[in-house]
């Protein structure tokens, strides 16, 4: 006993050194991954300097003119540019605003679905309404294209019933573009968005309902006073995250649905950056806009996080 203790104390420095070496070796193991993270997340930030040059793609950056804040000034000084930007911002705000306003829909969907007592029917609805979430926007567009073209199912039906004389141009027109974008988004995400709430409802203590029923609460009162409050924490987080992503509509949905007719109303910020930077002539302007967008987004995220901390005492990032 005595001897072994002595041996152990003697070995401590040696052990520590071994631990140190081990720690360094472990670091070496993860080093390649750190480099990957650096290459694809930190290194791209250097591209922001292109916003201060008049970059013309075949040339090298060193051969291009340094223009300082010209692109940023242009965004706020050139009248035609201002008009265009305002239009794009309007689209972004309209579509994001509509999306934000419908964040509550999955909550309602879940509450009413949980009112259905038949278990297999609930599972059936849950399984099939989540499928659209797992197909890409290209597929959604293909589905839309198949159903809503001149010879698609919707127009054929409407013609047959006699509601219309000529096929409606659902896709190659510019009527209700914001609304139709919102509806496709809801079609794709409503079922999936409700899963979290359904799980939360399943976790509510049934005794609460029993007690309220004894007190004479009806179905709607139970929903309003027990189910809804129980879902609020989750709803709040989701809402805050969508506020933080207000400017990030993503490119996919709007890119696939855009065409010459609806460009006026579908061009959100992400799509505009793509159109200007990749197909247009000005990568520098696109970089400048993208840079502003990133800065605003990260500010929003911190603001929302602070708000969440103030209101609920929990951070979301």
């Amino acid at each position, binding site marked *: 006993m005595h001897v072994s203790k002595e041996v152990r104390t003697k070995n401590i420095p040696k052990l520590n050194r071994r631990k140190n070496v081990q720690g360094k070796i472990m670091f070496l193991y993860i080093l390649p991954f750190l480099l990957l993270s650096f290459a694809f997340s930190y290194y791209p930030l250097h591209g922001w300097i292109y916003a201060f040059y008049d970059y013309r793609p075949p040339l090298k950056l060193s051969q291009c003119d340094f223009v300082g804040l010209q692109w940023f000034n242009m965004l706020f000084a050139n009248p035609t540019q201002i008009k265009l930007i305002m239009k794009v911002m309007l689209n972004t705000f309209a579509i994001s605003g509509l999306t934000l306003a419908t964040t509550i829909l999955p909550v309602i969907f879940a509450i009413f679905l949980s009112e259905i007592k038949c278990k297999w029917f609930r599972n*059936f609805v849950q399984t099939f309404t989540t499928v659209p979430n797992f197909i890409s926007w290209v597929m959604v567009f293909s589905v839309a294209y198949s159903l809503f073209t001149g010879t698609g199912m919707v127009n054929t039906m409407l013609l047959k019933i006699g509601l219309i004389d000529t096929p409606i141009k659902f896709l190659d027109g510019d009527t209700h573009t914001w609304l139709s974008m919102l509806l496709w988004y809801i079609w794709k995400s409503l079922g999936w968005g409700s899963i979290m709430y359904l799980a939360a409802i399943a976790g509510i203590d049934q005794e609460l309902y029993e007690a309220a029923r004894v007190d004479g609460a009806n*179905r709607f009162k139970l929903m309003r006073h027990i189910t809804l409050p129980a879902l609020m924490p989750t709803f709040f987080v989701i809402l805050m995250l969508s506020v933080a992503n207000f400017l990030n509509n993503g490119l996919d949905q709007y890119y696939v649905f855009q065409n010459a007719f609806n460009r006026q109303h579908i061009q959100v910020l992400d799509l505009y950056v793509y159109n200007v930077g990749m197909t247009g002539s000005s990568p520098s302007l696109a970089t400048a806009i*993208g840079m502003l967008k990133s800065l605003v987004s990260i500010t929003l995220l911190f603001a929302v996080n602070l708000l969440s901390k103030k209101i609920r005492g929990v951070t979301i990032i």
Partner: protein
Amino acid sequence: MAKLMEKKTKRKLTATDITFNILNYTFYVIFTLICIYPFYYLIINTISANDLSANGAINFIPKKIHFDNYVNVIKIKGLSTAAWISLLRTVIGTIFTVLASAFLGFMFTQQRMWGRSFWYRVIVVTMYFNAGLIPMYLTMKHLYLTDNFWVYIIPLIVQPFNIILVKTYVESIPSSLQEAAEIDGAGIITVFRKIILPTCKPILATIAIFSAVGQWNSFYDTLIYITNQKLYSLQYLLYCYINQANSLKALINNTAGTSTNVMSLAIQQTPTSVRMTVTVIVLIPILCVYPIFQRYFVKGIMIGSVKG
């Protein structure tokens, strides 16, 4: 007693309840139909006579069923290459992401690692910012990844969110498992292979499923980084097909027209039939995988919501 209770609850069904139930069921039936009918519509149109489907005559019941569309579409030049690319990126990308997430998630639980919490933060913070489209494109260009198959794989290997998931999971495993193995002389890699990988199976399955669906559905990266047609993913090719109905017609005539000049209208390829058939081909893996792995998807979103 139980029977009595049952009777009591049954009697409680008032007129309001019945109306409520009817309305409620009706809504969910309709919404579910709206969610699945489009897929049904696509499928019945691809197996019906092509002249009928091009005129919009197939809405609910398939007519004159045939499978020539599938046989012919597979012959279209470029489609099999794209399918191969999509399959490869899904398989390779998923394997890389899962292994990297598992390894990093595990390594970041090791207190001994040099600068552990610092490096962990360095990786996690990348979730919250991005450089934007053009800088990303230029980066890929500098790294020789544009027009390169590996652009589908390498940038997606290190995924902070997945790493957080694995790390949280590993922390819930008793550390005595690892200690016992180390006393038996196992190195860190052996511990990872023999202990961590098997015990983390549930969370890794979830990550794999999400990553595979993401890879299969990805469209953006082809659009931005790829110009070489041989590297097109299936999703991007489908997008091209939808938008270029005319060139598609030429393509079909080149492929199918030479072999059988006298083709009946019912099985002759039309842009509509090709578009729909390709859509269904892209769709099928998702529709097959989804019901089997639904619980993993649900689990995934639940874990994600606990701590983002």
